[in-house]
């Protein structure tokens, strides 16, 4: 039993790390721009494809392929922010419609380019096994956990220790006040979209080789990331981080007690329970803007 529990905790931490990347990106964009970007999951997916492309066609280095994918997605993010979301500022309904539309456009674009079938990406870290007691995991599991750990720590330090990072948090807490201290909102929008899309790309590039790369690979990470930021309290960055990790671990451990098919149900049951008991989320405040 302890073995099985350990196994699921490690699996859950791995998946939770992926959810964390998605949730952190979404919450940054939401906090600064008030855009709930439902297209975040397809950006994650495109990140997987672009990484696969770079790895198989161009670079033959997984690390460079990941960085290349993050760079490409940053540019796509920039274009989406400029071309779509900035124009729809303060228009929540249109933003939702636009992001749902983007899902269709991007998903069909990917199918047009790469076809509907899953792609496989063979890298050494998925072949190497790491034994822990009687268990064994792929090295990729730990690569994911480690990379996300380092990345999230770096983002956290950026947000708390740097001038621009603090300005990002300031903008998400009080946009009018940010304007009167001279923070240019447009620059903050760009920064949040850039970081958010790069994180989504990183997620897709890390998960792709472990499972497969396919047009709907971002759907579940999107839903879990969304659940994470709601459970964590809309707009709360620590909430998104802990929420993402927590969801990964809870759903993995739940498979020990209930059939695997109900894994997603457990997450959404937890979401509903949090909403009933603590509507502002675990780390949220009751009303946006009020402390």
């Amino acid at each position: 039993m302890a073995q099985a529990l350990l196994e699921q905790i490690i699996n859950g931490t791995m998946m939770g790390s992926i959810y964390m990347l998605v949730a952190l990106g979404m919450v940054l964009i939401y906090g600064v721009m008030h855009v709930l970007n439902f297209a975040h999951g397809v950006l994650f997916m495109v990140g997987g494809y672009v990484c696969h492309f770079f790895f198989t066609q161009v670079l033959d280095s997984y690390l460079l392929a990941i960085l290349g994918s993050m760079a490409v997605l940053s540019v796509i993010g920039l274009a989406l922010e400029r071309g779509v979301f900035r124009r729809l500022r303060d228009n929540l309904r249109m933003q939702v419609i636009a992001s749902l539309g983007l899902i269709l456009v991007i998903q069909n674009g990917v199918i047009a380019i790469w076809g509907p079938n899953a792609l496989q990406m063979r890298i050494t870290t998925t072949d190497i096994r790491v034994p822990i007691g009687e268990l064994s995991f792929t090295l990729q599991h730990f690569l994911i956990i480690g990379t996300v750990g380092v990345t999230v720590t770096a983002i956290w330090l950026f947000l708390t220790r740097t001038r621009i990072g603090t300005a990002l948090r300031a903008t998400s807490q009080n946009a009018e006040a940010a304007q009167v201290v001279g923070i240019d909102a447009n620059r903050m929008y760009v920064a949040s979209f850039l970081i958010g899309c790069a994180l989504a790309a990183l997620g897709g590039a890390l998960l792709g080789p472990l499972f497969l790369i396919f047009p709907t690979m971002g759907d579940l990470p999107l839903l879990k990331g969304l659940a994470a930021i709601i459970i964590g309290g809309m707009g709360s960055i620590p909430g998104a981080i802990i929420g993402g990790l927590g969801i990964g671990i809870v759903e993995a451990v739940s498979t020990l007690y209930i059939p695997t098919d109900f894994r997603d149900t457990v997450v959404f049951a937890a979401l509903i329970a949090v909403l009933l008991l603590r509507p502002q989320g675990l780390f949220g405040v009751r009303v946006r803007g009020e402390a």
Partner: protein
Amino acid sequence: MLEARGLTAGYGGGRIIVDGVDIDARAGEVVTIIGQNGAGKSTLLKGIFNMVPVRRGSVSLDGAEVFDQRPDRLLAGGLAYIPQNHSIFPKLTVAENLRMGGFLLRDQRLLVERIGEVEAMFPILVERRDEYAAGLSGGEQRMLEIARTLLMAPKVIMLDEPSIGLAPRLVDQVFQTVRTLAEQGKAMLMVEQNVKKALAASDRGYVLELGQVKLHDRADRLLADDRTAQLYMGARPGGTAPSAEAPEGRP
């Protein structure tokens, strides 16, 4: 120092809120704008600071036309604005709030030096440096807003109802601070509902009605003027703003 001519401002939809207002504030002066709720006082300040979607007219700062400049450029040019709604960052610490006040200062040494100066002016901010700004009382939050503004060493400060929601003792303290800043040579332009105390602390005043200047005079004359008294004293005994429910004190 600060001069607006024929300033017209609104939020779109065809309705003009501020209608051709001429107003100015000179160095060393406290100028107060009074007027009923909805008269357009806040919109006037926002209009000067280029934060409303519809505006016409001219705004000059130290003789230079700045009407088209973005808020961050205005701030860099010496015009600061403290809005009516609390403009602190609730989940940044007091120290981080101060640092954000100097966001546009590229020179970090200068920023640290100026933070030292304003902390000397407002000791409470040193005491609570590492706490979230949300934990400060209403009066302390106002002080933080004023202190934060000073980091850019502005020549003109516009304050929208700085005394709103404060206990009488703190109202006096805020107006005292405003006077002190004027004595240091800044031009202070404030909007107030607390008519008596505000005019008592001012050099000149404007009465705004339906987006237009109805009266403009020396503050002492306005205080004595029957029309001002009739319009504002009776309606608001003691001059306390209607939303002043919570006196000073921490939760």
